[in-house]
């Protein structure tokens, strides 16, 4: 047992007060010379004994009352053997939720201060680590440290808004760190707002015996978010119209009328719209914009609403605007007659007007492929080994390769020496007339055709086509023929992609080029493959930012917090990995990257306290909601349970017993 206010234990000496009063009374007696001594004797011994016991009991109670009051004030703690561990060093891991939802109110400030208090109160020589749960969970410091002041300082610099909390990974990470720590007394503390979307379906990792869930923040339901932006083109050129469809959602029960939605390009407001959202309703707003200059641009859609969470009211997207998209068309069966060459229809489809984004160059050989974004091989019988190597390297570095078969191709060569480029080997030429099977297309290159207004792929008639061998696992079938055989097959190679069709691009074996969908189909395929050449500018949290820069001179990157990072390119490729914070990252060149986070954080519903309790039970953890509760819990764990409350009840009971006993003895005196 120990005392929290040890100095007040001295108050126990108050028990001597009744004794002193008793002894004083006893010492100040008078003397009477008395005759009737035999009447002073107790008639029966047991009666005397009983009275003596009662008076002794009364004296003891009177002594006990002030002593117990002093003990109560000294706040005794039942410890047992735990007191030996009480001030022992501990290994503590704090999992701190720094997700977007923690920005509601001052929840994160509370959480941060809570964590700092925990760290500051750790016994001297304790080991501490912090895991940040938002986005891609990561430890605050590379290694657990004994320098708790440093942990506290680093915590003080933390902010929320790191996307959605990844609870399972965070807890696994924290448990893993804790396992490697050194002290026998281990503790894990999870500080979070227990947002339902983050905490549902979380499996319990192996938690230490002393695990605590700290639930902070109140549930706020009124929140509107811009959930996503759909861009009509993956590649866009100067002057081309880009349609931006913004998806908005009202996560709460409030009804919002005529919300203003702004469309900004590079920070300049370009358009505005209005939308009304009922309770739990979703809506869309469409903006159209044509960029007047090539380069990297940032578009932002912002809904003007006063709600609980501001960070999800704006959705950013980085849009690279191309000046020109060079495509090399390698014609394996050129013809002097119009529209008889293997690439004639393609040339028209890809560059229907001089203002087209795509600039085609037709050649008989696959030379100088590096200066192009996409290379199309149409009815090419075979390639030299050097061309195969250069094309392979071209694709590996992000280029796109589109292969169309034809009557001239050497299937034996393609299946053997050209197999590095071919996604799937050719097996046989089929003469069964068929058509393209229409289904829901998952591939981004064909998503356009999920809307029938953009063309009916099944309208084409195909007389001859190549069969492919069974598709290996690293390939993806974009579309199939009515026979079930693949129509378009994709293989990823390095940073680029290769798509191979089973039908030629000309009108020899099919009427594809004469169908209305031919032009958008070819445009989609080429722009898809071209976009592979440009590393993505809009990434998820945790994905690396990659850009091709003109030379290998160091460049600087500004992150969403405004911090600048100096990066050294390698082979003109610059890479930045620490994308835990969502928002806009800008390379000086300039190239913009947007790191997006899942908008699941916008649904601010929290687990109910009983749910948190039952959840904690499965984790074997305790739940606290305030610092005082935590302190008591920690005190109990370290030192045992405070028991001044039962002592106080005992004092009250003793006061009543004393009164009763006093009255009882008084009655017997009056008899």
């Amino acid at each position, binding site marked *: 047992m120990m005392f929290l206010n040890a100095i007040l234990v001295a108050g126990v000496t108050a028990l001597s007060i009744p004794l002193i009063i008793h002894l004083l009374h006893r010492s100040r007696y008078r003397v009477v*010379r*008395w005759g009737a001594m*035999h*009447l*002073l004797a107790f008639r029966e011994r047991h009666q005397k004994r009983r009275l003596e016991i009662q008076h002794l009991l009364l004296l003891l109670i009177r002594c006990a009352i002030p002593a117990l009051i002093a003990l109560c004030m000294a706040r005794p703690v039942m410890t047992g053997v735990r007191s030996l561990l009480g001030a022992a060093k501990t290994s503590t891991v704090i999992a701190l939720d720094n997700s977007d939802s923690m920005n509601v109110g001052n929840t994160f400030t509370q959480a941060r201060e809570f964590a700092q208090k925990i760290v500051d109160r750790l016994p001297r020589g304790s080991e501490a680590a912090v895991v940040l749960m938002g986005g891609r969970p990561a430890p605050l410091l590379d290694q657990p440290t004994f320098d708790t002041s440093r942990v506290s300082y680093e915590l003080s610099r933390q902010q929320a808004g790191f996307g959605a909390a990844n609870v399972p990974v965070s807890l696994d990470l924290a448990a893993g760190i804790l396992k490697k720590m050194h002290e026998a007394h281990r503790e894990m503390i999870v500080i979070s707002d227990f947002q339902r979307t983050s905490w549902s379906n979380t499996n319990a990792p192996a938690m230490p015996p002393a695990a605590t869930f700290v639930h902070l923040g109140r549930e706020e339901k009124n929140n509107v978010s811009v959930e996503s932006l759909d861009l009509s083109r993956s590649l866009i050129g100067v002057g081309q119209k880009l349609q931006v469809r913004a998806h908005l959602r009202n996560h709460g029960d409030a009804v919002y009328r005529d919300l203003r939605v702004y469309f900004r390009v590079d920070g300049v407001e370009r358009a505005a719209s209005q939308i009304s959202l009922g309770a739990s309703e979703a809506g869309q707003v469409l903006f159209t914009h044509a960029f007047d200059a090539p380069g990297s641009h940032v578009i932002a859609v912002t809904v003007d609403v006063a709600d609980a969470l501001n960070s999800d009211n704006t959705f950013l997207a980085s849009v690279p605007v191309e000046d020109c998209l060079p495509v090399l068309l390698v014609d394996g069966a050129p013809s002097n007659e119009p529209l008889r060459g293997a690439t004639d229809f393609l040339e028209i489809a890809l560059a229907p007007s001089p203002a087209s984004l795509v600039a085609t160059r037709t050649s008989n050989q696959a030379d100088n492929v590096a200066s192009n974004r996409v290379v199309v091989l149409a009815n090419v019988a075979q390639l030299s080994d050097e061309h195969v190597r250069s094309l392979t390297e071209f694709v590996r570095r992000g280029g796109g390769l589109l292969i169309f078969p034809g009557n001239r191709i050497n299937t034996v060569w393609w299946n053997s020496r050209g197999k590095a480029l071919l996604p799937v080997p050719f097996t046989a030429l089929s003469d069964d007339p068929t058509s393209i099977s229409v289904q829901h297309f998952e591939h981004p290159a064909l998503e356009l055709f999920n809307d029938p207004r953009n063309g009916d792929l099944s309208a084409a008639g195909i007389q001859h086509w190549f069969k492919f061998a069974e598709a290996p696992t690293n390939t993806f079938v974009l579309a199939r023929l009515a026979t079930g055989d693949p129509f378009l097959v994709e293989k990823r190679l390095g940073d680029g992609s290769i798509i191979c069709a089973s039908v030629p691009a000309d009108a020899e074996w099919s009427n594809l080029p004469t169908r209305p969908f031919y032009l958008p189909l070819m445009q989609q395929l080429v722009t898809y493959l071209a976009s592979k050449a440009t590393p993505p500018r809009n990434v998820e949290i945790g994905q690396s930012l990659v850009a091709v820069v003109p030379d290998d001179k160091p460049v600087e990157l500004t992150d969403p917090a405004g911090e600048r990072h100096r990066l050294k390119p390698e082979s003109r490729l610059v890479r930045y990995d620490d994308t835990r914070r969502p928002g806009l990252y800008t390379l000086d060149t300039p190239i913009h990257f947007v790191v997006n986070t899942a908008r699941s954080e916008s649904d601010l519903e929290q687990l109910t306290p009983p749910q948190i309790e039952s959840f904690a039970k499965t984790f074997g953890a305790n739940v606290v909601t305030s610092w005082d509760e935590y302190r008591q819990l920690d005190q109990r764990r370290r030192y045992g349970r405070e028991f001044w409350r039962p002592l106080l009840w005992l004092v009250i009971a003793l006061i009543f017993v004393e009164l009763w006993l006093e009255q009882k003895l008084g009655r017997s*005196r009056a*008899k």
Partner: protein
Amino acid sequence: MARARDSLTPDDLRKIANLQMFARLVVEGFCTGLHASPHKGFSVEFREHRGYVAGDEIRRLDWKVYGKTDRLYIREYEEETNLRATLLVDASGSMSYAGKSGLTKAAYAQRVAACLSYLMLKQQDSVGLVTFDSKVRKYVPPRSRPSHLQILMNTLEETKPGGETELAKVFHQLVAKIHRRGLLIILSDCFGEVSELMSALAHFRHARHDIIIFQIWDRDELDFPFHQWTRFDSLESVADHRLVDPIRLRSTYMENLENFRAALKQGCHRHRIDLVPLVTDEPYAVALAHYLARRMKTA
């Protein structure tokens, strides 16, 4: 009688040092309101005549019978029926307790004894006196001479309380000393073992003595008016003392007192002994009234 009680309180009479004077004052005052004494002229009573034999006193010859019959007859009388009373005054240590009034029980007992002696001798009764504690200190045989009063008073005045009480033992001794039946007036607090006391008194009763016990109490002994811690030192034994909290002891004391008095009363009733409790703050006339009432019964 009521007037005497009112006028003569022990507090007033305490100032009179001379016991005889005191007794006279009390008794005279007491008797002032009484009717004519019912005991007047009962000194001799004729029983029979018998023939004269040589040696008989000439003055006892009945000359009237000689004149009628010419024979010498001696008149024989009944023995004198005057009361033979013996006062047994307790002089043990416990009798020396004095409460607020300052009058010890022993002093009160002596004065009551003096008053009774005076009264009885005035009525020509024989009065004896025994003072005792654990043994008989003084024994004055009963006499009815007026001059006997002085002896009694002197003996009483000389008596100082002290020593332990052993009533039963003393009484058993006295049975042998007091041959002739008479009235025994015991002035004592009767502290001691009741059963033994009763046994001794039964011994007296067996010797056909009438007994009146004037049990002397101090008011403190009846009320036990103590509050603070008190050490009670025995008046009879130096070694015996008891430090008690009177407040918590009082109930037990009162219970003991009741039991003691009840046992004494019951024992006296069984042996037809008059038990008259006297408190030292009560008038002495109470004792006289009790005595006279008893005397009338006896006569």
